[in-house]
């Protein structure tokens, strides 16, 4: 490993403490590199039915959420302003667009940040 050079720089007496501090330093260095490996270990499970289901539910909930917001806003507008049924029609369409936008954004995020579930 790369810490051979550092070991050579240490004073010659190989006491337990010197060995321990060398090991600690090596551990520190490995921990510094750790986040990436740790994330790949815990963040991205093997491609199984589970992560596929999670991904499907995730993307579909994004789409549904957009439509639901459109329905709620359109309905409320119709109720208060009395533009029935035009508020609902327009807002459902806009909500659908927003939902598709959500899905595209979520999928793009998954792709850029590796295979994150």
């Amino acid at each position, binding site marked *: 490993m790369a810490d051979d050079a550092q070991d050579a720089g240490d004073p010659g007496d190989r006491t337990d403490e010197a060995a321990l501090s060398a090991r600690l330093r090596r551990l520190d260095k490995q921990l510094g590199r750790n986040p990436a490996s*740790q994330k790949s270990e815990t963040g991205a499970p093997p491609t199984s039915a*589970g992560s596929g289901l999670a991904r499907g539910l995730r993307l579909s*909930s994004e789409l549904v959420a957009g439509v639901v917001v*459109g329905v709620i806003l359109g309905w409320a507008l119709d109720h208060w302003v009395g533009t029935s049924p035009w508020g609902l029609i327009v807002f459902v369409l806009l909500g659908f667009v927003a939902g598709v*936008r*959500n899905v595209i954004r979520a999928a793009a995020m998954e792709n850029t940040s590796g295979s994150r579930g």
Partner: protein
Amino acid sequence: MDDPIHQFEITKLHEHPLFKIGAQEIYLTNSALFMFLAVGLTMLLMLGATSRRSLVPGPFQSIAEISYEFVANTIRSTAGEEGMKFFPFVFSLFMFVLFANVLGLVPYSFAVTSHIVITAALAIMVFVTVLVYGFWKNGLHFLKLFVPSGIPIYILPLIVFIELLSFLSRPISHSVRLFANILAGHITLKVFAGFVTMLGGLGLVGWLGAVLPLGLTVALTALELLVAFLQAYVFAILTCIYINDAIHPGH
């Protein structure tokens, strides 16, 4: 066959109300009990882990350190170093959802996060936090979040409107995702486990046939454990992403 929805029923654990708020009688329900349990176990874990801080961590300290590192890394990678201001918030959310999910998998227990009231309350909390902090930190610059750059002016009003709808849909998708995953998982588990007892009632042939759903139930339980963790992680990371929008709007 048992009703697979029955497990989500909210029951009062005692006869007389604890106290009243206005005309509303307050009971301790199974849902409340498991929420207290989730919070209590998290506190126990963290307090137990930090009471005896040793250089070489014991099992509990290891778990606490791993969860700290995990959440801290998630925040740093999505919201940057500034996002660490929200570490207590995100960490509490993550631990609460994780413990609620995992506790819900224990037989005869109650899955708190399978109720949309709970997940919606958590998601709205995140939403309001983002709104308040966004306007407090950036003032009206926060509205740049709805104006993507490089859009022709004649199409801008429509885009802003769609971005606004997309922003409003966040708490919905945030809460529905967690709730739907847990709900669907628990129902599937119950249905497959129900097949075992149904087939078992048919005699020897049924017993042999019941091996298949039993194996599936075991596999599904493992899968649900993964989902329980994964959904807590997804909930936390989405919180981080939304908080990132509050810290750095305008892209």
